[in-house]
């Protein structure tokens, strides 16, 4: 009885082995059909945290700044922006230039203050108004955007810190997804009484900026 059961099992095992072998042969025969190769890459579910985010933009700039009645000089500085959404960004900037002599200083032949550096900082809000593509010749197209920007800050000028309002506009061109070249025009307005009477000075600025997104 026992050996009978055993032989049934044995037959089952041999039978399944033969069938298995046959199915392997059948697969071999199908090999002429186009093969579907499963890519040997581990596929995990998407985690938002693992995606590289590039919402910050660090910028260095050089340019010229004309401080009303105090001549035009080179200006340089740095900016750091955070992109809030596709249209808005907040940007902090610091910059420095030198000021020349005002017409009154030249007239009386005396300098009214010693430190001829003008340093400013500002925190501004930018608005990407006109996004699109710019064409360089017939074959090259780059992403670009025209933006408006304005904000508040402080200007150290003539041994004094002054409340400063700024506004301007700029054009940003993207040679790659992470690098931008910006041409920007800004006006910095602050009140000063360095020339005896209180008046609002304009600091007109034109800059060439190189930005990197990270």
């Amino acid at each position, binding site marked *: 009885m026992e050996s009978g059961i055993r032989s049934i099992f044995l037959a089952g095992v041999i039978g399944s082995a033969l069938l298995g072998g046959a199915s392997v042969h059948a697969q071999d025969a199908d090999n002429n059909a186009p093969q579907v190769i499963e890519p040997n890459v581990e596929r995990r579910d998407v985690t*938002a945290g693992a*995606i*590289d*985010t590039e*919402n910050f933009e660090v910028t260095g700039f050089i340019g010229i700044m004309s401080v009303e009645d105090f001549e035009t000089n080179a200006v340089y500085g740095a900016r750091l922006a955070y992109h809030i959404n*596709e249209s808005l960004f907040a940007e902090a900037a610091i910059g420095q230039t030198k000021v020349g002599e005002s017409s009154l200083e030249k007239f009386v032949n005396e300098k009214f203050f010693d430190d001829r550096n003008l340093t400013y900082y500002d*925190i501004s809000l930018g608005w990407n108004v006109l*996004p699109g593509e710019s064409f360089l010749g017939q074959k090259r197209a780059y992403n670009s*955007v025209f933006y408006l920007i304005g904000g508040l800050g402080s200007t150290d000028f003539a*041994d004094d810190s002054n409340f400063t309002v700024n506004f301007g506009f700029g054009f940003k061109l993207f040679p790659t997804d992470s690098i931008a070249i910006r041409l920007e025009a800004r006006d910095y307005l602050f009140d000063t009484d360095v020339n005896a009477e209180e008046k609002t000075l304009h600091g007109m600025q034109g800059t060439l900026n190189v930005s990197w997104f990270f």
Partner: protein
Amino acid sequence: MRIRWLTFCLYLIGATSAVAAADIQYVLVADPYIEMHTGPAAGYPITHVVERDNEIGIKKRRTDWFLIVDSTGKEGWVSKSQLEQTLQPSGTKVDFPDAGLAEYDQHRWEIGLMAGDFGGATSYTGYGSYGFSRHLSVEFKASQILGNFSDGWSAAINLTHTFVPEWRVSPFFSLGTGIINIEPKANLAQTTDRSDQVAIVGAGLKGYLSRRFMVRLEYDGYVVLSSRNDNEDVDEWKAGFAVFF
């Protein structure tokens, strides 16, 4: 020698791009098609579409736009709303949850900037805050004061109580102390710089804006504990934005 350098550089570039490739995450397009823009905003033109059942790789994100690469190697920017209609390898929809009101209710840290009026002068304030609990937090504030006759700065530490943190807009109350330094303008040089201790009582409103942003309106009453006979009272009104996390 130059060739060896070149090979080395190429090897480095290869190595970094291999690292970058490892970061790409793959999803399957489930909508009829997905639109690829040249840049991360709706205003940039659509140059390609990827059809349903094709796989795309997500390379990076800027605001609510994602740089993706399709199976032919074409790259383009896809909006978050479209990407959230794609399927993950497990078959479930992709989800990129933004910080919301729930996170605002539970947040610990705040960093913000405010601008306002300090007794007739303009003031800028930067602050950082850490919450011990949902209601109670400690705040560090630094201000620059720009006046017509004098400039200055102040630094203060405050204890703030937010009454109803689960509300979208909640009132708060604060008590603090610090120092204030006032420098008269250079052309009014008969007085000297003054540093004094201050006591501050404040109240205001904190409001949740969107994502990780909040808005803050605040009144602070300063009592300047000067070395002269009279203490000086200064009112400060300010408004600003903050991020929380």
